[in-house]
């Protein structure tokens, strides 16, 4: 069995003393798509934002336990948080293009990392845009403002913006919540291709999407991990009653 890309061990997270994630143990492997499902406020997003330490910026956030990435605890004091965030790329529920041109959006992360070489920038952008199935749509209009793109295009731009940094983990927080079925399908297709070279964590409210677009599924409820397993098994033969209740629509 291969080593996990990310290994979460006894991880707790709380805001102002109120626990959001409780004693979580979970492994995320390379080349897999892990879906996290669960009703609202069950700690999905908190968990996701712990993976790139975005929660550190929230007031009153505290945590315990370890999250190992390639065997190294990401909460160690000698971790370069900026570097971590580049390698654990995050896509938000609502597409947020910065109010600049498409090109500036794409190169922003690279410039932050100190990469200025024009050829490298252009090359990385093309690769990322192709991954996100956006290249053909924007290759001739990179200097146009990003907010003229459609919602689906904007979200794929946001994915590409993360991909130019060549992350090895991609975390997506309900990336298709505001999108139409066609845009959603495009993003799900992109994830299939991306999984070859990335670990993908996909938080979603849409159980059908989890069933379609993931290899394994984890079910969180009120901060507790109830069950995790291959997607096909979770959706057909959940071992926990609460998982089954959720999937048939008993709550949430």
């Amino acid at each position, binding site marked *: 069995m291969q080593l996990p890309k990310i290994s979460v061990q006894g991880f707790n997270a709380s805001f102002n003393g109120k626990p959001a994630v409780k004693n979580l143990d979970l492994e995320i492997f390379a080349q897999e798509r892990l879906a996290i499902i669960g009703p609202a406020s069950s700690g999905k997003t908190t968990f996701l934002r712990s993976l790139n330490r*975005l929660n550190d910026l929230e007031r009153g956030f505290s945590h315990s336990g370890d999250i190992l990435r390639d065997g190294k605890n990401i909460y160690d004091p000698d971790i370069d948080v900026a570097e971590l965030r580049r390698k654990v*790329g995050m896509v938000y529920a609502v597409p947020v293009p910065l109010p600049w041109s498409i090109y500036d959006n794409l190169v922003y992360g690279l410039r932050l990392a100190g990469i200025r070489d024009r050829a490298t920038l252009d090359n990385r952008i093309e690769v990322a845009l192709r991954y996100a199935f956006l290249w053909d749509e924007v290759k001739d209009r990179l200097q146009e403002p990003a907010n003229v793109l459609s919602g689906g295009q904007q979200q794929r731009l946001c994915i590409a913006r993360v991909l130019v940094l060549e992350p090895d983990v991609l975390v997506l927080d309900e990336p298709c919540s505001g999108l139409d079925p066609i845009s959603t399908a495009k993003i799900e297709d992109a994830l299939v291709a991306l999984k070859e070279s990335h670990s993908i964590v996909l938080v979603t409210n849409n159980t059908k999407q989890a069933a379609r677009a993931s290899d394994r599924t984890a079910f969180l409820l009120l901060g507790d991990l109830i069950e995790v397993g291959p997607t096909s098994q979770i959706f057909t033969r959940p071992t926990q009653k609460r998982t089954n209740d959720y999937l048939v629509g008993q709550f949430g």
Partner: protein
Amino acid sequence: MRVSPAIIQRIAVVFMWALAAITFAVLVFILAYVLLHGLPHVTWSFLTQSPANMGRAGGIFPMILGTFLVSGLSVLVAAPVGVATAIYLTEYTHEGRMTAVIRFGADCLAGVPSIIFGLFGFVFFAITLRMGLSVLSGSLTLALMVLPTIIRTSEEAIRAVPDTYRQVSYGLGSTRWQMVLYVVLRSAIPGISTGIVLSLGRCISETAAVMLTAGSALRLPRSLFDSSRTLALHFYILSREGISMANAYATASVLIIAILALNLLAYWLMRKFVAKVGR
């Protein structure tokens, strides 16, 4: 007989529109009064020559330059300080005792009348720091005076930048400072500029504080340690000493046109800003 509420409303609205009409009529009257009396005397040579015969003849070039120096320098000093303060308040700390102290200080400073700034600048900059009545004393005094405006408008502009932008920037691996510099300031600059432009307008209009700190020398200032008379003060002296009404009106016209231009600029920047952050 009871008057119906609809009629009362109609009367009230007519009354309030009348008040509004009077207000705008006063504005138009003041502008027209000054410009009609003054513009005929504003010629190219009036703008480019030095005054002669204590301002009875000649032009106002030294005052234009003096105004430009005093206001420009004060904004140049106040803007970085004010914007930095606003950044601190919005991006580098949480609401707490420190922000309360800073905000209270800024609010109090905003209420201090200009004559007090003048007294202070006179004692502190001109005498204690031995800068004399000079462009430097005047501009530092004015810088202190417009600081609260710059802090407040910058803070508002920075707060208007959506939080999601900050999230995205962090997510792409920026430090806080990079985020502030590249995302927040870049979006907030039109809004911040609006405050700076309005502050520039206040500096140009100010009389009491510059009278006590920058002095009233008629000559072209050659250095920041020279005294210089600003346009507003020149207008005041010309009109009050009864030296030359024509030149007083002309000076006031130049002043008013500068203010109009700055207000237009501020308005344009504001619209640009609103369009940018999509409020």
